C-alpha cells in the first residue's frame, strides 16, 4: 500500500490542509460527530480501512474505526507536515478537534510571516529552517514502510507558500531524489489580494519546472467559476460555508481523486509514479491539467449520467485551471482517465474512443491514453471520473503569469523589496523572465512538431 507524506506550506496550504483531514476521514468512513450513521457493513469497512495507511501512521492498528475517538485510541497520527511562517492557522490545528491526529514534531511555525515576498521565503527562511524541516521530514519518512511520494500544498501568490514551498521542493529533490514530488499549487489569478503576487508566481513557477516531478496547478479563477456555476444551478444547495471552504473542498477532492488509484485497489491500477511515466513525454513539460466530475454532492445513478461524466471530466468547465484540454487549437500530449466506482473495461474503452475524436494529438501521441479503474468511489457518490491531461492549452496560465510579471517588472515596481533580502540577486529577475520564456517556448515547439515524413523501411 502506498504511503504519502502531505506537506502543507503557508496560510493557503494549511487552510486546504485543515479541510483535507476531515475529508480523508469521511472517505475512509470514519464518523465525525455530525455525520449520519454509515450503512457500510463491517466487512466492507475492514476492506476500506486497510487502505488508511496511505495517510496515517498507527501505533496499533485495530480492524475498524467507527469514530474519531476510536482512531485516537489506536494512537493514529496523520502523516502531515504543517509549515507556516506565521502562527494563526497552524495554531488552530494545535487547538482544534483533530489536534491529537497531528504530530507535534511536524508543526513548524515562526513569527511574523514572509511579508508576501518570495525572496524572503526562499532565500531567507529557507536556509534558516532547512535543518528543522529536514529533521521533521526525516522523522516522518522513517515511520514509512513504502513511501510513494510527497504531496505538497501551497499557494503561488504569497511569500511563505511560494518561497518556502518551492525551497522545500528543491530540498526534497536533493535529499530524497528517488521519492516523487507532487505539487498541488494555487495560482491566485483573478483574485489577487497581494500586490507582489505576479513576482511570486513567476519565481515559484520557475523553481517548480526544475525540481518537481509533476505539478497540478489550480487557479482561483477557475475554482470560483465552478463554485458559482454549481451553486447557482443547485440554488437549494448553497453551501453553508464561506466561499473559501468550498473552493478548498474542490482542491481536496482533486487530491483525493489523484491519489485514489494509488491508495485503493482496482482492476487497472494507477500508481502515482505511473502518472509521471505516462504523462510527461519530455523533461520539464510536467504541468498537468486536472479535472473531475461530478462536483456536486448529488447522487449519480443513471447510466446516462455515468456516460456523460467521462467527457465532462475533460471539458473546460470542470478544469481546475482556466484552460481547455479539448481546445482544437492546442495540442494534447497525453490523457489519463481514472474511473472510480463500477466501470467496466468496455465503458472505459468507449470513453477513450469518444475522447480521442475531440483531441488534437501531437504526431507521436495518438495513443497516449492511460486508463485506470479504481474500485472505491468518492464518499457519497456511486461514480466519478477523474481526468489528467498534458496539453499545450496550459500555456494560457503561463502566458498570464509572464504578462503579469512583465507588467510590474517593466517599471521595476516593488523590486526593492526583493533586493532588500540579502541573499537575493537582482539578476534573478532577468533570469526568471528568460526561464519562463524558454519554458513557454518548449510548449510552443510541441505545437509546431510536424509529423515526420519518413517511415522505418
Amino acid at each position, binding site marked *: *500500500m*502506498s504511503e504519502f507524506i502531505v506537506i502543507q506550506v503557508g496560510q493557503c496550504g494549511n487552510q486546504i490542509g485543515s479541510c483535507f483531514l476531515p475529508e480523508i476521514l469521511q472517505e475512509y468512513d470514519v464518523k465525525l460527530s455530525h455525520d449520519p450513521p454509515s450503512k457500510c457493513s463491517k466487512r466492507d469497512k475492514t476492506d476500506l480501512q486497510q*487502505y488508511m495507511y496511505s495517510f496515517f501512521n498507527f501505533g496499533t492498528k485495530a480492524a475498524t474505526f467507527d469514530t474519531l475517538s476510536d482512531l485516537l485510541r489506536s494512537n493514529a497520527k496523520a502523516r502531515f507536515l504543517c509549515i507556516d511562517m506565521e502562527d494563526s492557522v497552524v495554531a488552530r490545528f494545535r487547538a482544534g478537534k483533530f489536534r491529537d491526529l497531528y504530530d507535534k514534531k511536524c508543526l513548524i511555525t515562526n513569527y511574523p510571516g514572509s511579508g508576501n515576498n518570495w525572496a524572503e521565503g526562499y532565500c531567507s527562511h529557507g536556509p534558516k529552517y532547512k535543518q528543522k524541516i529536514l529533521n521533521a521530514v526525516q522523522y516522518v519518512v522513517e515511520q514509512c*514502510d*513504502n*513511501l*510513494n*511520494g510527497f504531496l505538497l500544498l501551497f499557494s503561488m501568490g504569497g511569500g511563505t507558500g511560494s518561497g518556502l514551498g518551492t525551497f522545500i521542493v528543491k530540498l526534497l529533490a536533493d535529499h530524497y531524489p528517488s521519492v516523487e514530488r507532487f505539487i498541488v499549487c494555487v495560482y491566485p489569478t483573478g483574485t489577487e489580494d497581494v500586490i507582489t503576487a505576479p513576482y511570486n508566481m513567476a519565481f515559484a513557477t520557475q523553481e517548480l519546472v526544475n525540481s518537481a516531478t509533476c505539478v497540478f496547478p489550480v487557479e482561483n479563477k477557475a475554482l470560483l467559476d465552478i463554485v458559482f456555476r454549481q451553486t447557482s444551478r443547485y440554488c437549494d444547495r448553497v453551501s453553508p460555508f464561506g466561499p473559501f471552504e468550498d473552493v478548498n473542498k474542490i482542491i481536496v477532492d482533486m487530491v483525493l481523486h489523484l491519489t485514489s488509484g*494509488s491508495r*485503493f*485497489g482496482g*482492476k*487497472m*491500477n494507477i*500508481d*502515482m*509514479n*505511473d502518472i*509521471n*511515466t*505516462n*504523462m*510527461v*513525454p*519530455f*523533461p520539464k513539460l510536467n504541468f498537468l491539467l486536472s479535472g473531475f466530475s461530478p462536483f456536486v454532492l448529488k447522487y449519480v445513478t443513471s447510466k446516462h449520467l455515468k456516460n456523460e461524466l467521462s467527457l465532462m471530466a475533460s471539458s473546460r468547465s470542470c478544469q481546475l485551471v482556466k484552460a481547455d484540454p479539448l481546445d482544437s487549437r492546442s495540442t494534447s500530449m*497525453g490523457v489519463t482517465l481514472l474511473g472510480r466506482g463500477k466501470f*467496466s*473495461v*468496455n*465503458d472505459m*474503452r468507449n470513453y*477513450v*474512443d469518444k475522447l*480521442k475524436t475531440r483531441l488534437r494529438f*501531437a*504526431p*507521436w*501521441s*495518438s*495513443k*497516449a*491514453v*492511460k*486508463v485506470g479503474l479504481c474500485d472505491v468511489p468518492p464518499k457519497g457518490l456511486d461514480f466519478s471520473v477523474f481526468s489528467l491531461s498534458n496539453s499545450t492549452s496550459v500555456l494560457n496560465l503561463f502566458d498570464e503569469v509572464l504578462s503579469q510579471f512583465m507588467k510590474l517588472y517593466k517599471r521595476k515596481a516593488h523590486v526593492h523589496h526583493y533586493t532588500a533580502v540579502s541573499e537575493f540577486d537582482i539578476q534573478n529577475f532577468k533570469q526568471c523572465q528568460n526561464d519562463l520564456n524558454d519554458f513557454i517556448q518548449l510548449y510552443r515547439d510541441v505545437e509546431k*512538431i510536424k509529423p*515526420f515524413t519518413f*517511415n*522505418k523501411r
Partner: protein
Amino acid sequence: MSIITLFYGQCGSQISEAFYNNLHTEICDSKKDDYYSQSVDSWFHVTKSNKLVPRSLLIDTERKTKPRNVRYQLKNVVSKSCGGSANNWAFGYCEQSKLLTGEVEEQVRKELERSNQQVRFLNIFSLSGGTGAGVGSAINEFLKNEFPNKIINGVVLPYSSGELVTQSYNTLLALSKVYSTSDAIILFENDRLHHTCTNSLNIKDVTFDDINNLIARQLLTVLQPLKDVQTGDLLCNLCDDPLFKLLQIKLAPLSKLENASNWRSLLTSISRQSRYDFQQKTQANVTLKLKGVSSALVCRGLYSPVETDFKPFKDSSVAKTVHIYHQRRKIFNLDNCLSVVSNSNNAFVSLYTILQDAWNLYKYGAYMHHYKKFGVDEAHFKSSFEIVENVLQNYKHL
C-alpha cells in the same frame, strides 16, 4: 511432469485467480483416476494433511493488487510493496528485479526440490506494464541462466487503442528479451479476447474477469494432461525451429450454448473466429496470406476423432505439420472441447502494430528520458527494435 507457474504483476495475479478457480472446478469433483493424479502432479504438491498447494509463485511490486479470494492458498508470494514499477520497463528490469530475484531464486529452488519429476517453468505476465514486463523479463533471463528447465511464457498484449502510454515501448523491450530465453511463447491479445467476449460469448459489459477467465481456460485446455504427450511438451514441440516461437490458441466451444456435438462443427466454430484476423489485417493495411509452421489440435471428449473429421482443416491448413491429440476425459464439463494451437504468421499483425507505435514514439524521442534514467538508452532500443523486427520478418517471409 510438473509445471512451476510464475505470475508477475497485476495482470499475472489476476490471471492466477482465474486460473486456479478454473482448475479447482476442473478437479475438485473429479474421480481419483489417472487423469486426476497427473493433473495434481503437474500443478500442485500435496502436503502431509492432504492439502493441495500450487507449485506457483506470485511476483509483484505492489502488495495491493494481490488477489484475495483464490481457491488455493498461494504460499509463495514474493512481493515488495514499493509502489509499483511506474509503467516503466526499465524501472522493473533494472531496479525492481534486483530486490526480487534473491527471494524468487530461493522459492524456485524449494519448489524444484519438492517435485521429483521433470519440471517446466510457465511465466504469465502482461507485456505492457512495468512490473510484469520488466521484472518478468529479468527473471526469465535469470531462470534461463540458472536452470536447465524449459521455459514457456504466456504473455498478454495490451489493447492496441491504448491502456497506457508507454505500452509499446514496454512490449518492445520485453519481447526482445523474452524471445531468446523462452522455448515457447503463447500470445494472448486483449483485443482478440475482448472481441471474442463480445461476439462469441455475447457479453455486453466486458470486464477483465471475463478476459482473464478466457485466458485461463485456453491455457488449461492445452496444459491439462494428455495421453500421448507430456504436459507442456506439446507447446515446445510446436516451436522446434528457434526462429519461430509465437503460438496462438483458439478454443471452441466458448459457451455451453454452442453446438458441440461433433468435432467438425467445433472446427467450423474455430474457423469462424478467424474472421477477426481478417478484420485486423484490413485495419492495419497488411496483406499477408496465412502461412504456418506447425499446429496442434487438442480434442477433449469421449469420442476419439476420426481422420475425416479434420480433413478440411488439414487440407486447408498451411502448416507443415499438424499434430492431433486426444483425451477421453471431459474438460470444463463440456462434451467435446477442441483447441487449436498454431504457430503461424497470424501473430504478425498485432505485433507489427505495436512495433509501429513504438517506432512512432521513438523517432520523436518521446518518453525516452524515463528510460534513460535507468540506463536504457538509444543503443538498447535500437537492438531491441532489430530483434523484434527480425522475428517479424521471419514470419512475414514464411
